């Protein structure tokens, strides 16, 4: 092998390493992704001075437009379903919120309206965690006639000292012609070192 060939191999090596190093940079996990690594001739630089290729952008933009249309349609389907199945004049929605959770770890909630069970929900750890972060779960959405109703909610879980805990809360509410929102609230009563369970009527 003459010197010229050896040089060509060597340059090939540099090109390979450069391409490999760029890929390796993109694989770096947690910290800031390092840029492409090894010096090489600009022509073979993996991080060439250009934005994303035009055809990739076009496809990407098309994908984006399509996804936006799907998201919009999904929303329309969701709204249509709610309006059709739960019209405002009969709609009753019950939400569950949870504050802090020092004295209570939620397992499940059962809801009865006019002594008839309408919801029984078992919470996963992930869902309970979402509640603690500030999420509010719409646990029941249904139809009730205009007039007075009684809602009773039963909460089960672990109370202070990791003991099994079951409590109830009740409210009598007036269902008018508009949608009715009720919120089941689990809060910590710091002074009593006990959880509290309330039902709030959102007028």
């Amino acid at each position, binding site marked *: 092998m*003459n010197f*010229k060939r*050896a040089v060509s191999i060597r340059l090939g090596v540099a090109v390979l390493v450069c391409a490999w190093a760029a890929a*390796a*940079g993109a694989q770096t996990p947690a910290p800031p992704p390092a840029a492409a690594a090894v010096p090489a001739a600009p022509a073979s630089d993996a991080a060439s001075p250009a934005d994303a290729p035009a055809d990739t952008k076009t496809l*990407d933009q098309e994908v*984006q437009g399509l996804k936006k249309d799907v998201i919009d349609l999904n929303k329309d389907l969701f709204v249509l379903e709610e309006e059709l199945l739960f019209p405002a004049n009969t709609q009753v929605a019950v939400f569950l919120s949870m504050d802090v959770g020092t004295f209570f770890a939620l397992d499940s909630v059962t809801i009865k309206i006019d002594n008839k069970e309408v919801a029984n929900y078992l919470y996963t750890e992930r869902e309970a965690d979402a509640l603690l972060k*500030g999420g509010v779960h719409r646990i029941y959405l249904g139809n009730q006639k205009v007039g007075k109703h009684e809602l009773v909610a039963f909460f089960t879980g672990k109370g202070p000292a990791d003991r099994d805990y079951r409590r109830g809360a009740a409210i009598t509410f007036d269902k008018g012609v508009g949608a009715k929102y009720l919120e089941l609230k689990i809060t910590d009563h710091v002074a009593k070192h006990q959880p509290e369970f309330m039902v709030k009527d959102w007028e």
Partner: protein
Amino acid sequence: MRDIPRTLLAAAALWALPWSAAPAANVAPNPDGLPPHEIQDLDYGDVLFYFYQDDYFAAITRLLAAQELNLVPHTQGEAELLLGGLYLSLGEHVEAGRIFDALLAGNTSEAVRNRAWYFLGKTWYQRGYLTEAERALREVTDTVDPRINAERYMLLAQIMMRQGRYDDAIAVLQAWRGAPSWTSYAQFNLGVALVRKGRLDAAIPFLDAVGRLHSDREEFLALKDKANLALGFALLQAKRPAEAKPILERVRLEGPYSSKALLGAGWADASLGDFKRALVPWVELHKRNLLDAAVQESYLTVPYAFAQLHADGQAAGYYSSAIDSFDAELKRIDESIAAIRAGTLLERLFADDRNKNVSWVYQLKTLPDAPESRYLYVLLASNDFQEGLKNYRELNYMSRNLESWRDSLAAFDDILDTKRVAYAARLPKANAVLAATDLDRLRRQRVEFESRLDEIERTGDVVALGTAQEQATWARLKRIEDYLAAHPDDPELAEMRQKERLMKGVLYWRLDASFKARLLNERRAVRELGAALQETQHRAVLVDQAEKTVPADAGGYAERVLSVRNRMDALQQRLAAVAERQNRYLQALAVDALEDQKRRIESYQLQARYALASIYDRASNGKPKAAP
């Protein structure tokens, strides 16, 4: 009390996301920097419930629906920012950009603006929109959290490097100040930028410092290897092999960069004319998997070194074996290209991916057990491939999601039919009841009754409110009184006259004493009657309206169902077509990667053949054959 832990939780969760993100991942939506969230709109809380479970598709659907139904009136600003973040999480950076632009043009706090621009810039960078990314990152002010600011300048430097603007990148990196854990990355990038500007001596201190890092963490050990490799090869290119060799020897033998380091170390020795020493790393490399480009290279360098040492027999043996190995490898690559072109690559990649949520952290890390997979691991590290895979996966998820609505649409049709049937059955009955009820007459009677009460009250007619028995007694007493009045001089009636006066007085006293209470009762009854009549009137109006609107409503719903069904069909076709294009694009990337591999091996094979021929020529004629 309530807000502090949540704010901390949210901050912790959201801080963790961008810093632990793999480079190809999307940016997490980020409502951080917002005021503490007290529940003002239950529906916004419902959106957060799904958002905090990373179910961004459900979250965005509910948020858009809540906005359309005006259910988040108190949280509009937060909702918009979250919406922008959710669009980002689904890779919709154009829509996210539109929302952020609108939001940022409005009256938002600097903290929110900074975070919005930062996440937008980072997403654009990852998607390859470098110009837009730089514009967004430059909108962030230096008052932003120092950690974000450090990453911002790092991203700006990387944008400049990807655009070949090494001088700009050097300026940014030289001024860069950040957390110690990031300093090594900044030094590494600065060293690389300097090398690319031809300023090797200026680069050496930075790359050398990273190459001497002390750490137990794999990420820093890998960075250390990379820095040593980069510096070693830069020195080799600058014809400084003696300096390059100890640097390359710092690279760990068991690390991911050891093959390249072994190759370089061999070249350093070869450049110094010590081919015997060069054989040590090269032979070690030769034993490794031929998939590695450095190993492929060693199939040429080992016989080349033997030839330089005049061990032509061994050189010829290695060249022959290289040609055979390359042949076998080329055959496998051709088979793999054919398999990829057959179009089943993506199906296998996502075989176990059904029913999973669309997640911004999605990144494919393993490949199916197939012959072509062995060549494609390098592709997994490529941003284009990962982004393309993510798009393909999201398109499939959305297609499945739409398909799941089909059953619901069928149920909507049934509901509308049931409503129509119920309406047709109830309407005649309702009309019959309404026809038999003269509401006007009832209303007139109520007015007359109220007037009568007014008259009773005005005249103090206590008898009028007496019971039937009392009124009969009163009438009897009145008749007796009349009789007595007709016989005023009859002495036999004197006792009766006295009794009559007494009884009338007692009855009047009783009637008068209960008059107010009775009047109140009567007035209450009139009011209740009025309310009942009003309710009846209201229901009659509702029935009347329903008679007119129910068919129209049903028709409206039916039209909406039809409309969404048509849109669904059209979108499914587009989804299938774009997914197919995405599939072809990914296949093309995969095939390109294999073609590159193939071209490289073909080139090596050609060089091996000529080198072998040259050895045979030399053996038979005593002079070398010309190079190709």
